[in-house]
């Protein structure tokens, strides 16, 4: 169990290291922190939470046939999503807390959705490259002979 935990930590470290290295180089070149990055982080968290919540509610609806479509999980997830929307509305409405270069709440929300669409596409293309290249590396090796027939 301890070995499994340490391997997970190594994987997380391997994922974070290149990003942190590049950001550190960026800091050393720019010599300052980007002031808008907190807003971007907050908007990304709230938008992805709401969009992912919607997708999961859809899954709940389509997969609930085998359980006679109980309404309790559906209502629970809708409540969790409503809380996310309420927090997003409250935080974006506060001046200069999560509002980026947009005129108001609705413009910021629309901008967040389009931004997530673009960054989500970038992450999806990167995943195609990385996961595909991993499988290509795995299938590229000659198959090993486990035992020879007599």
């Amino acid at each position: 169990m301890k070995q499994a935990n340490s391997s997970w930590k190594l994987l997380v470290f391997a994922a974070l290291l290149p990003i942190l290295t590049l950001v550190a180089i960026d800091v050393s070149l720019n010599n300052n922190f980007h002031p808008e990055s907190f807003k971007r982080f907050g908007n990304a968290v709230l938008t992805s939470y709401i969009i992912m919540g919607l997708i999961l509610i859809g899954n709940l609806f389509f997969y609930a046939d085998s359980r006679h479509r109980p309404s309790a999980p559906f209502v629970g997830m809708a409540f969790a999503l409503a809380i996310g929307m309420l927090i997003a509305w409250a935080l974006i409405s506060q001046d200069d807390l999560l509002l980026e270069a947009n005129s108001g709440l609705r413009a910021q929300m629309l901008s967040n959705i389009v931004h997530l669409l673009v960054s989500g596409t970038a992450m999806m293309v990167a995943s195609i490259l990385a996961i595909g290249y991993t499988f290509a590396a795995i299938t590229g090796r000659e198959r090993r002979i486990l035992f020879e027939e007599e």
Partner: protein
Amino acid sequence: MVPIGIWLTISGKAKLPGKIIAATGLILVMISSWTVPDSDSSAGGHLILTIFAPTILLAYGIHGMVFGGNVPVGRLDPSARWSGTFAVFASIGIFCLMHWYSFTPVWRDGTVNPYWIVFLPTFLLFSTSLCSMSSVALIIYGENRSSDAGKLATLSLLMIVITLAAMIFDGYLTTADQFRDYLWLSAADIFGTMVGISTAIGAFAIVIWSYEKSLPIPESSPPPNAEEIEHVVSLARSHIGGEEE
């Protein structure tokens, strides 16, 4: 339309209509710069349209690389592996040319598409991170996979080099300063999206767990009566025995 189409496809209830709805939604998003030219948000659809061709080339290349190797089903000719490798690196090259050469996605009045400078750093950061993680995963969980892990580490390094080049050298319509600014925002975007998705999945798990926990424990079925035991014994007898050879 896209999520509804995907839901219908995944649920298996209306696979073909689901695919058609999702594809139609995607096409409508991609042509939004013509259908709603006054909207600033249609730049997102315009960007997806401009990266569509290199993404298809990338997917084609990955397909050739994977299925040109040793796979038990759907194996392609071994030459597909080489053509696939060429296609993958050509698509990465096209993305570089889109930044440093005149292929840059142009939006209104000859200015760069505002989402291009969002897409490129996010793509580069996320791919270098995933390749690095896959490389370490191959070493930890695989057997004698050092050379394969080396290939992934090299790809991760290539992505780092491209990112560093974009941080130092100006693009065709963007400056290195702009790229460095957006690199910060991309890192914030990636971490924010991961946190948001994890939180939504966590909330979903809590909701399902609470519901399942609230259900009554199923009652144990009563032991079989004499008649049922007799029936089982007769069935067993009919399947045991046979004539000796």
